């Protein structure tokens, strides 16, 4: 979404019957392979040139009891011939692989939407597990929607029969049957999926053939069976996009590649210390495979060891990076203080999830902003930046490395469960276009009789980075307060005041090397500004665009640099008559803005574990302007 351009097409601009966009939700049991189905449908959508945004929505349990509502796993995709910024407010099509999937997801479907149900799974036993007294396919409880039912399970069994699989294995192919039908519905090419199946099951060609047969059978079913008006084939035109080479990317992938790029631009090897936690682990998985870029990945014994080892690596001259989610970040807090005190470069990635405590491990939220900006003992400032979309995570990762190495400081990079797992088209960056920012290690020993000064300062108040192993520059650092310059232990009132002031001024000074805050949509001095940060970009952008098309005087401001903020942010915000701040928390950025700029920012909060719907923000815009 972010990289596909947001240019309004002629049709959109004149608010004519809108360009086509469709929201499809695949839902089934955790074991039904819905995430895989969604992922492949996403690939096919991207290859068809549609803009898209996805929302994988899965339970915290790996394999919850089969057929239960809490074991339902879903994958939603919004795609169209226009710029797509969100995974869609309401599905137009729901594919329900069992009664539980129907029960959990039906209410979200728009009135008149289409339900495709696998009636083979609507057995008395499964109905009871989902809490249905009667089969909803047989009564009028689904009258608000169009319902198409067929026995996908049986049709799949028939299709894969020649391959001699056991019943269980054969039924595993039904997600490919469903995908085949979906590909037919939207006039898609099957070949890329066939290629993917062949490579995925390279070691079990029988399974590959069975899955391909199921895929083809689903496709053929759509083509040959008369299903009335409910299902008809639709072709959705490619979306407007800047010319260039594209791929789809998830936030976790973009972040991994961005960190690698950042380290390369800085001329550093990277040390990535991490402890498994949902939804942050994919970053560790991606980086663990990229050794040729001088990356060492270390799965530590706990979150604390993960950050401490990264700090040790930074001390020794590599780029230390650690990654976690809220609860793990909480454990790393003391060590972040150490990194601030020893003024070493370090990247701390927080893939936020629902909190507090264990909270909602697989759901998204933005409630760790206070933790990032304020959550340490002592006056312990560090820069905080936030990615707004999967593709944006790439640029933010590079920016985090730039700040960390230039200012000798830990940097927190905020992303969230939604960004980490969601995919969007990404216009491939031309790497030769990025200006390198090579690190210089200090390696000149002081003159005879002069002490080493590890806490000397440059113009930007950064201290020198001295690698152990450098002759003549032996020195000691630590978490205890120190004398300016020499870094020797010094608890004196003067030393603590001076060092605290310096640490604060250094971090605030980062604002000198970041761009001014731009307006994402709308103009300065509008009647209303909708101010956001992080993954709310999509719904805010669409809501503001729709409001503008209706003639409302509203602007969208989206902040990447949370701390320190761009120099002009205060003035910019003070120029708007009203400000609302939609956030997936109880109003954290709103409070920060009020504190920093004395503006009357009003909150729009949501903590349901789900992203904002465009309509929710649109309603808030209307209310604010009423």
């Amino acid at each position: 979404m972010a990289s596909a351009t947001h240019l309004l097409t002629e049709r959109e601009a004149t608010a004519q019957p809108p360009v086509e966009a469709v929201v499809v939700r695949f839902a089934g049991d955790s074991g039904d392979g819905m995430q895989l189905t969604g992922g492949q449908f996403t690939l096919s959508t991207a290859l068809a040139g549609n803009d898209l945004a996805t929302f994988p929505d899965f339970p915290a349990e790996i394999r919850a009891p089969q057929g239960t509502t809490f074991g339902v796993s879903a994958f939603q995709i919004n795609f169209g011939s226009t710029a797509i910024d969100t995974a869609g407010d309401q599905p137009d099509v729901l594919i329900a692989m069992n009664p539980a999937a129907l029960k959990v997801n039906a209410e979200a479907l728009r009135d008149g939407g289409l339900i495709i149900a696998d009636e083979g799974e609507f057995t008395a036993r499964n109905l009871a597990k989902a809490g249905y007294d009667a089969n909803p396919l047989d009564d009028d409880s689904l009258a608000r929607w169009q319902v198409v039912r067929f026995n996908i399970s049986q049709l799949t069994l028939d299709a894969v029969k020649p391959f001699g699989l056991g019943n269980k294995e054969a039924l595993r192919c039904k997600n490919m049957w469903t995908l085949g039908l979906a590909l037919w519905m939207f006039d898609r090419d099957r070949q890329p999926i066939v290629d993917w199946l062949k490579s995925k099951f390279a070691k079990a060609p029988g399974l590959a053939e069975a899955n391909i047969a199921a895929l083809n059978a689903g496709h053929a079913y759509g083509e040959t069976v008369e299903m009335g008006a409910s299902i008809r084939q639709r072709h959705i035109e490619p979306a407007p996009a800047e010319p260039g080479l594209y791929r789809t990317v998830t936030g976790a992938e973009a972040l991994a590649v961005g960190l690698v790029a950042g380290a390369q631009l800085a001329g550093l090897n990277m040390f990535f210390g991490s402890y498994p936690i949902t939804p942050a682990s994919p970053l560790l998985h991606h980086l663990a495979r990229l050794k040729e870029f001088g990356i060492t990945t270390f799965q530590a014994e706990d979150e604390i060891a993960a950050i401490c080892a990264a700090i040790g690596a930074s001390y020794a001259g590599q780029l230390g990076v650690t990654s976690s989610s809220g609860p793990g970040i909480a454990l790393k807090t003391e060590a972040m203080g150490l990194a601030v005190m020893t003024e070493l470069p370090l990247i701390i990635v927080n893939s936020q999830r629902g909190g507090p405590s264990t909270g909602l491990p697989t759901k998204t939220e933005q409630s760790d902003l206070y933790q990032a900006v304020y959550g340490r003992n002592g006056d312990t400032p560090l820069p905080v930046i936030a990615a707004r979309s999967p593709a944006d995570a790439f640029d933010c990762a590079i920016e985090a490395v730039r700040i960390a190495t230039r200012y000798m400081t830990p940097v927190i990079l905020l992303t969230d469960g939604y960004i980490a797992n969601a995919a969007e088209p990404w216009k491939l960056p031309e790497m030769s276009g990025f200006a390198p920012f090579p690190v210089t290690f200090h390696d000149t020993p002081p003159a005879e009789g002069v002490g080493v000064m590890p806490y000397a300062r440059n113009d930007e108040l950064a201290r020198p980075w001295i690698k152990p192993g450098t002759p003549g520059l032996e020195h000691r650092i630590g978490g205890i307060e120190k004398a300016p310059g020499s870094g020797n232990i010094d608890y004196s009132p003067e030393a603590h005041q001076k060092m605290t002031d310096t640490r604060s001024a250094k971090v605030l000074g980062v604002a000198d090397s970041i761009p001014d805050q731009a307006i994402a949509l709308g103009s300065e001095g509008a009647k209303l500004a909708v101010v956001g940060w992080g993954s709310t970009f999509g719904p805010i952008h669409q809501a503001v665009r729709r409001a503008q098309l209706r003639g409302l005087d509203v602007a969208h401001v989206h902040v990447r640099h949370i701390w320190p903020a761009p120099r002009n942010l205060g003035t910019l915000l003070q120029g708007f008559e009203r400000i609302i701040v939609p956030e997936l928390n109880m109003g954290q950025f709103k409070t920060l803005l009020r504190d920093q700029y004395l503006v009357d920012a009003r909150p729009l909060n949501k903590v349901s574990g789900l992203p904002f719907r465009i309509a929710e923000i649109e309603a808030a815009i209307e209310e604010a302007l009423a």
Partner: protein
Amino acid sequence: MNEMAKVTTAKDWASDQEVRWCPGCGDYAVLKAVQRTMPDLNVAREKTVFVSGIGCSSRFPYYMATYGFHTIHGRAPAVATGVKLANPELDVWIITGDGDALSIGGNHTMHLLRRNLDCQVLLFNNEIYGLTKGQYSPTSRIGTRSPSTPFGSVDRPLRPCAFALGSGARFVARAIDVHKGLPDVLKAAHAHKGASFVEIFQNCVVYNDDVFAPFTAREFAGDKQLWLAAGEKMLFAGGTKGIALDVERLALKVVEADDPGVIVHDPKNRSIAHMLIEMPGEGFPVALGVLYDDPAPTFESAVVEQNAAAASGKTPDLQALVSKGQSWMVEKEPHKL
């Protein structure tokens, strides 16, 4: 570390910082022993890093004229792991105490030893929390009266060397702060490739004075100290007594020196090492010196090797990396603007 390091003296290894431990603290003796030992190790100052946690002993790095990192409570092993993985050429020493390494940092100590990171761990065991003014520690004996246990501690203490051996350490040794045997133990620890765990009985003159006197005091030293030497019989009490294996009970026993069953010390024998560590106080000496020394491949060498193997034949091409997976070309704007 391979080329000959510059010839140095103990003074070259002392920093210009004023040492600030309590007068009479055992830490002074350990600092002196380390500074005296360093010139004999053929290592360069600039390649030496002392990493510590929090506690009295953890001030140690400030007093060494090497690279040093005074980290946070219990986390020195984790920081040291990052240092060593980032630059395996560095000679890493971890300075820690009984609370730092075994209480708040127990987890990290365990995993450092299990992974076998090449470094020396010097655990200053004084059986008390000194820096926080005298609370009992995880090595304090049952009944230890302290500000937090005015009626005596009730929980059973940990034996640091048993913990180390149980965690998979491949080098376990014991020494006494003021004893002349300490430098030799330090040298052996340094010579061992892998994690070398050294428990140093260190006297806290303020909060736990003389807690080790029953075997460290001069008048008991002969009877109560068993200094081990590889290939030599386990003899003590001026060579009059020895340690033998009670085969029926599968335990150690004290015998006369001329008993044919006196054990010859084999530092690779893990079972005997465990028995030596666990020897009961009553009637037995305290085993000192190198109890166990059986090298195994180190963590950092395995990481370096695997990284190199995984990277071999691949060129670090950023453009190829961003372009991974299936891509498609948008030739021109599909809609007219």
